[in-house]
């Protein structure tokens, strides 16, 4: 109908599948994020480290080629081992934290600020789909920053080193994938929960860092005063690092974890404690979301 015919008419066209409707949210979110020059630059810059790593892997396997141009001993620069891949994951995960702190606070708060949430939920669209839609914005972007480049590097190394290497080091691929997902889920839930409760974006972003760094400092203070190691329960990066260690190396680990996610020697917490602490954190975030993501807020 032409817009000049200003009459109401019913809709009789087809409808999209209800299963994929939550993906409307990330599509709109990506359009918004794309408009921010800073975020676009930051996101592209986050691939610099994996690019350098890819170059190192290439150099490792093309020594003779480099010899032709006079570069000697390039293969001794860095070994492609568990430390190499944990560093990739560590660096990228830290960048993912920054990304979550930048874009996370803007996810739910604009919908709550002027009651737009009631309009989302007045449609055939559930609270769970809303949260999934918002989560998928962070999950997709952080996946592209963490496990996707990690697995691409693993594949490149496997391609150059041979299928045998891939088989022998399959644990690394699993560690990259599962380790990144644990981090992504924790970060995404935390970012959304803070976005739902703190309407002022800079404060919500600062709180993201606060939860990681201030809580870690508080945990270290508890350890120092009480001469215990249980203060690490407040240190999310240490909890994640502990789990990553087991994912990458099992119980007989040879390193003390990934960069930014180090585990203090002799102060490792039992694995189940790390899982339990992260589970509690996720449940608290889900509870916070469940309290706020409602069609109407009821004052009892």
């Amino acid at each position, binding site marked *: 109908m032409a817009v000049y015919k200003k*009459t109401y008419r019913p809709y009789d066209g087809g*409808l999209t599948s209800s299963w994929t409707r939550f993906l409307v949210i990330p599509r709109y979110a990506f359009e918004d994020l794309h408009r921010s020059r800073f975020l676009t630059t930051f996101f592209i810059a986050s691939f610099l480290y994996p690019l350098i790593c890819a170059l190192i892997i290439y150099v490792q396997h093309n020594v003779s080629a480099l010899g032709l141009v006079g570069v000697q001993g390039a293969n001794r620069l860095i070994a492609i081992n568990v430390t190499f891949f944990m560093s990739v994951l560590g660096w990228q995960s830290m960048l993912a934290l920054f990304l979550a702190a930048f874009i996370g606070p803007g996810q739910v708060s604009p919908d709550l600020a002027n009651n737009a949430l009631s309009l989302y939920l007045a449609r055939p669209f559930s609270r769970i789909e809303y949260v999934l839609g918002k989560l998928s914005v962070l999950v997709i972007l952080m996946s592209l920053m963490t496990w996707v480049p990690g697995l691409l590097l693993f594949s490149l190394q496997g391609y150059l080193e041979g299928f045998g290497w891939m088989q022998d080091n399959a644990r690394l691929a699993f560690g990259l994938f599962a380790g990144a997902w644990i981090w992504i889920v924790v970060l995404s839930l935390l970012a959304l929960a803070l976005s739902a409760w703190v309407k002022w974006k800079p404060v919500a972003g600062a709180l993201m860092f606060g939860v990681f760094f201030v809580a870690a400092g508080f945990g270290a203070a508890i350890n120092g005063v009480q001469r215990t190691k249980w203060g690490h329960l407040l240190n999310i990066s240490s909890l994640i690092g502990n789990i990553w260690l087991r994912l990458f190396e099992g119980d007989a680990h040879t390193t003390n974890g990934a960069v930014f996610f180090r585990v203090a020697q002799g102060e490792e917490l039992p694995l189940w404690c790390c899982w339990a602490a992260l589970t509690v954190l996720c449940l608290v975030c889900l509870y916070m979301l469940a309290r706020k993501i409602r069609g109407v807020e009821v004052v009892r």
Partner: protein
Amino acid sequence: MDPVIELDGLEVRFGDRVILNQLKAALTGRSIGLLGPNGAGKSTLINTLLGFHKPAAGTARIFGRDIRTHAREVRSLVGYMPENDAFIAAMSGVRFVRLMAELAGLPREHALERAHEAFFYVGLGEVRYRALGTYSLGMKQAAKLAQAIAHGPKLLFLDEPTNGLDPPARVRMIQLIQEIRDRGDLHLLLSSHLLRDVEECCDEVLILKDGKVAALCNLEEERRANRNFLEIETRGESNGLFLEAVEKLGCETAPGAQGRVKLIMPDGLEVRRLYQVAAEQNVQIRRLSHKRDSLEDIFLKAMETADGRL
């Protein structure tokens, strides 16, 4: 006629407070008014029908679909214009309506087309690319209406649609609602505390008071009925006795302030009898006028408590 909305013992509680108390009604009108004073439960009823509140007991059906078991299906049939502000401030009007249409299930090309149409329809065509946060109150109301109709619902919930509008904007909003109603493609549920809005737009009225159904009235039938309405103004010590005597004659009465009484005369009763009864009770009838029952009368009557207070 199959009811559009059927309330079947619907009860909603917030903690210990009963907000909607055993509502029972079958609403069949094309355009249904939901009236009641502030706190009567009008918005809670709409929110419950949308699935925002869980009924403590009973249920409701919209086009025969139970809101408890078919909430998603019910929401796919309705459009909702809430009472308060509801928008994303940084988003342009047309993009917001398009987002809402896509969430309602429209493919993106259709959603975009319908968003533009809806914006032109509500008279915001020229400002559709402006951020919603910069809209005036009247424009925000119109944008809320646009998002409510963009996906072509079968039932439209309008919660106080003329809230905060200046007189020309109110007239325009009422005209839009009437146009939508007269197209005949959808049903309306218009919640308001403004009797005039409901009277101008609705053919059936559900009046709520303290969470209960105070009256359910078909305005069309009321308008068509040739009943004998009177408004009288009395002076005298024994007004109460006079009213009792008048009721014994078969009149329905609605006492107002300062001796004013609205009466519905039964067929065959002459006005002269009223003067006779008044004389017997030593009451003066100072003024008498024939009057058609308005929605205001119906509303005031529904609001009366047993002791005659409003």
